[in-house]
């Protein structure tokens, strides 16, 4: 075997080692969290080998009304946010890319990306001020709760969706739309039968992105939630202030499972879709 062969073999081993190390760094905390969620002991860091593994904390979790309420609110908020953000973000992407010659396009494009880099504290604070002012002037939104959280989250998530959809739309083959138009379809029909089905993967990944953003946001929600609405991350944060309960481990494990499931489904769906709509390879 040549020296080069040995060299590349060693390099291969090294990079594989680094890969494993990197993944351990990422996943070791999560794995330990999952393991400790089956611990019987009340002390988070002490493993009770006599009674473990047990599902004690999972059972307590299921009996915790406050927690279940927070989780349900979070799911609702995330789903509503994602849907709203996809509609608004897609409209924004279309407007930016297709609204004819706009001199201010670059500026508008940058402005739609601004929420991505804006500190969440500022977004949260400014939205709170807006809601309070609006309530004083118009009486809407009355108080703060789910509605204000959804509006706040959608504001942020819409920017992400716009970016995702815009990049996909930019590479969209417009001759497909022209062909449909040429075959007698009205612009509306073209949108529903050609543009939308082909944009679907981008919309789906935008939706999932928005859902995830909303699902784990605590900063913005803290500002705009009001006293009666508490999302899951907010509830977890408030619990942590009183000391960590092993319940949190069980909850985190369930959340991880849920996120993994949603992401897995999303990836599978969009993969299948991509394979279906792959652009024909030229021969």
């Amino acid at each position, binding site marked *: 075997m040549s020296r080069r062969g040995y060299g590349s073999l060693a390099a291969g081993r090294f990079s594989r080692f680094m890969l494993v190390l990197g993944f351990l760094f990422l996943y070791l905390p999560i794995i330990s969290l999952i393991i400790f969620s089956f611990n019987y002991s009340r002390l988070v860091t002490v493993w009770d080998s006599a009674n473990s593994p047990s599902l004690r904390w999972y059972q307590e979790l299921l009996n915790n009304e406050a927690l279940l309420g927070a989780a349900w609110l979070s799911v609702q908020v995330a789903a509503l946010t994602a849907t709203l953000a996809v509609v608004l973000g897609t409209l924004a992407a279309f407007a930016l890319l297709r609204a004819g010659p706009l001199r201010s396009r670059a500026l508008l494009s940058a402005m739609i990306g601004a929420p991505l880099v804006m500190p969440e504290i500022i977004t949260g604070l400014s939205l709170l001020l807006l809601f309070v002012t609006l309530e004083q002037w118009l009486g809407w939104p009355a108080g703060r709760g789910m509605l204000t959280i959804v509006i706040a989250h959608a504001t942020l998530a819409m920017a992400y969706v716009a970016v995702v959809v815009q990049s996909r739309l930019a590479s969209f083959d417009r001759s497909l739309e*022209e062909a449909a138009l040429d075959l007698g379809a009205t612009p509306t029909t073209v949108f529903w039968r050609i543009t939308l089905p082909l944009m679907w993967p981008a919309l789906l990944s935008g939706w999932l992105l928005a859902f995830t953003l909303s699902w784990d946001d605590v900063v913005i929600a803290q500002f705009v939630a009001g006293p009666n609405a508490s999302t899951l991350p907010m509830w977890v944060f408030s619990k942590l202030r009183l000391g960590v309960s092993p319940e949190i481990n069980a909850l985190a494990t369930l959340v991880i499972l849920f996120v993994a499931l949603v992401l897995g489904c999303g990836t599978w769906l969009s993969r299948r879709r991509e394979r279906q709509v792959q652009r*024909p390879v030229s021969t």
Partner: protein
Amino acid sequence: MSLSECVKIESLSKHFAETVAVSDVSLSVGRGEIFCLLGGSGCGKTTLLRMLAGFERPTAGRILIDGMDMADVPPNRRPVNLMFQSYALFPHMSVFQNVAFGLEQERVSRTEIDRRVREMLDAVKLEGLAGRKPQQLSGGQRQRVALARALVKRPKLLLLDEPLGALDKKLREHTQFELVALQRQLGITFVVVTHDQQEAMSLATRIGVMNQGRIVQVGTPDEIYESPATRFVADFIGSVNIFEGHIGNSGEGGLIAHCGALQIPLPSRVAMPDGTRLALALRPEKIRLQRQSDTGAQVGQRGTVEEVGYLGESSHYRVRLDDGTPLRVDVVNHRRDASQRIQRAERVTLTWSADDLIVLTD
């Protein structure tokens, strides 16, 4: 306007910002014709096609299709269909759905759609592939789906953008015959855009040669090739030898062109005053090439073979005349024996009939 006219274009222009894509084009295309717009890239042929389809608004001028002004008719209401260069097949629909799409927009009944799509797929020999997705088809099959999709609506006019451009050579030859046969059978007027002169020559009943947004010549393939009106057309279609010179005085019989040291007799029908500047174009295949030893008489031009390009069915010769003028000569290899063929560095005599010269004065 005559009854047999399908398309009439009246002084049509299109400007994009500062560039002029199409400039004052007037054309008429008869019903049942295959009209080819031929030109290099950026000559405006695609813009002209897109104006016919309705995707671009003319800056000036009118388009009449079957006598109807198309100015305010959007693409989806025109009796025109376009076959895209990229085919633009809908990737998320099957072959059947692609072809049926146009009929669905007309609110044709389901059974009628079914019948007409099947009929069309039969016509383009795709019966067995109705359920396939476009990406599961070969290039030639995709081309036929695109054709079927455009034809199934029975448009008055079919526009084809480089219809054979994406096919390989063997398939092209086959497909162009099929295309012409299908066109005859359906009687639909075709307007074809292409940069490929062979495609244009073999498909078209008439060709419009475009350059810099203008139509420079309209004629049958034969007229365009054998009697080009300008030097651009002569040069663009096929290869050509050009001699530049002027008419010189000569008593005996016809006129003589003086091109450098060459004295070239002109066709007898040419009548021009002495001293007129002109260019003579001569197609490479119109020249007879003979070994000098084989010709006794002192006719024709003498030269030396500089380069031979052997192409199988024919050979391209690059000959330098004794006065230094380079000439291209194409010879059909009708003998197998290589020793029968003229080789590099041989002394040769070139002859041609004066009638084969194209006299250009532009």
